């Protein structure tokens, strides 16, 4: 049973990891908690569902949805956040802005699509394979694989491409990067784009995993994913994965041994403990105390 539960947790964790990378990348560069990311993820899922209902066929719908969500990411940055950077406003200002944005997105979704849960098509064949008396459904397997691929792809982008180099440069020192002629604003937009894309993919996968989507789906998953990101060491992609899996597994184990009502706060309990013991998370870089 525990093995089974751990497997449930792994799949859940992968989904958190997918959302977490969005938080991680943005925070890495802007030192900003993008509270609208949960809403972006919900947007991704619902837009895909909407496009599916337009009979575009599943795959085109998903690709289109991913594109739209990515663009949404850019739009948010250009419209609301870049101006704040220009007048280099306090971080709290941007924080409140993202909260506002998340309100706008979620409630527009509710206004247009209604808040009820809607059935989401399954992306993977039904049924399951049984490896030594515990079961993995194809959906779980599919989710796991796709998430892994996506995360690897992201890591390649960040570590192997020149754009990724620019991203890492801006992460370590945004001013220096500017001086070195890195088009920081473009890099940031691109980051938001990637964030949106990964969020949309996460949205599609998770919705098909639960076979439903609804506007408020981003609320809790968003908060948990963010704590996953911090857990793993915000700004680090492997960290996001480890953090996500940690949260996912501990969550389903908590649900098993203490009961479902505990699951929502496990993430936060772990988070607080980790922050107190190792404030920079598992993989975070240590910042030197300076005067």
């Amino acid at each position, binding site marked *: 049973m525990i093995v089974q539960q751990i497997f449930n947790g792994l799949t859940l964790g992968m989904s958190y990891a997918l959302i977490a990378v969005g938080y991680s990348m943005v*925070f890495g560069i802007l*030192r900003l*908690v993008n509270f609208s990311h949960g809403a972006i993820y919900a947007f991704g899922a619902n837009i895909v569902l909407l496009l599916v209902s337009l009979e575009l066929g599943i795959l085109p719908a998903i690709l289109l949805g991913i594109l739209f969500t990515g663009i949404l990411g850019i739009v948010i940055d250009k419209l*609301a956040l870049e*101006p*704040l950077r220009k*007048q280099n*406003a*306090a*971080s*709290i*200002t*941007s*924080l*409140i*802005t993202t*909260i*506002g*944005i*998340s*309100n*706008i997105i*979620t*409630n*527009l979704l*509710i*206004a247009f699509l209604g*808040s009820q849960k809607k059935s989401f098509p399954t992306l993977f064949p039904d049924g399951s394979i049984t490896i030594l008396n515990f079961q993995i459904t194809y959906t779980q397997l599919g989710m796991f694989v796709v998430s892994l691929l996506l995360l690897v792809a992201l890591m390649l982008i960040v570590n192997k491409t020149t754009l990724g180099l620019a991203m890492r440069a801006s992460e370590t020192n945004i001013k220096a990067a500017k001086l070195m002629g890195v088009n920081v604003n473009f890099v940031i937009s691109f980051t938001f784009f990637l964030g949106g894309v990964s969020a949309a993919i996460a949205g599609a996968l998770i919705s098909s995993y639960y076979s439903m989507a609804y506007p408020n789906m981003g*609320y809790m998953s968003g*908060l948990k994913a*963010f*704590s996953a990101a*911090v857990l793993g060491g915000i700004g680090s992609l492997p960290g996001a994965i480890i953090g996500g899996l940690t949260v996912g597994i501990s969550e389903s184990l908590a649900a098993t041994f203490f009961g479902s*009502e*505990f699951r*929502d*706060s496990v*993430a*936060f*309990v772990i*988070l*607080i403990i980790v*922050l*107190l013991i190792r*404030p920079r998370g598992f993989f975070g870089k240590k910042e030197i105390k300076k*005067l």
Partner: protein
Amino acid sequence: MKKLFSKFDFPKLPKNDKLKIVFLILALTFLIALPFFGFSNYWMNNLVKVGVYIVLALALNILVGYTGLVSLGQAGFVAIGAYTMTVLVKDYQVNFFVSVLIGGLIAAIFGVLLGLPSLRVRGTYLTLITLGFGEIIRTIIIVWEPVTSGPMGIRNIPTPSLFGLELSLSNGGLYYLVLALLILVVLFSHFLFRSKTGRAFRAIKVDEPASIMMGINTTYYKTLAFVLAAVISGLAGSIYAIQLGYIDQNTFTFDMSTLILSIVILGGMGTIRGMFIGAIILVLLPEVSRALMAYRFVLYGVILVIMMRFRPQGILGWKPKKPYHVTKNARMLFEQGHGELVKLNISNQE
């Protein structure tokens, strides 16, 4: 008589602020007279709600506005206050006002618990811990059924009475209860601002290392800030519980915490006046725009974004223009050459 008065130094204002005093008096009389305009329960309800949120904003203002510690877990403190009061009054027949104080006390204890991490954790990470705190409190509410009766929530919270007079919504009693708390908290914030403590808070906000070098025990003051915010939120929480007459874990969500924070930022953090305008706008907006259904929360979001874009310091968030108020006595001491520098260091010269 005179002696007794001289014990307390009521906020003395320079002559050019006579207007301000007049304004304050008018405002106060207006607030006291308000219930006599014969508001319906519905509007009394809104008034009380606004009042409660102003108090909550003032509490968070001490954290965010003065000390620069961003908390997204205020709902947790509100919940602690609300539940402590309710449980004590309902299950143990403790007097309402006593229960409220105990509620504040317990909130304070949690304030310390939440303040201590600021020793190790800073900035966003601290904010995140507060966020987690809020969610954990909700889980505790759900799980600790024997006391909180879990997701069933607690119903029919009795309205308190003072000298046999019931402080209900309809007879305006609840309104005056909130008003009283509000006035106390405003005075407290005002006096705090012009004190060693207030200055320490503000110093920490701007530059923590520098304040350490000024000999300020930053850990102590950061924790103190959390405690103050917690106590006040707890007190407001119990009144809020009375107003609702029903509480469950969904009364104290992350949205409540963000609403309080938004009020502080929108109104102008660090100011007292700002909390009023912020609360009035953000609390009443959803009411007046009830007909907009889902769109009213879109509107709420739009306002936040626009405000942050064009007026990040908040609606009333300007710096004071009038000179720093120096009491007669201080000026006298100064002119008498009290605390002369040479006197201070003469020892080194002989």
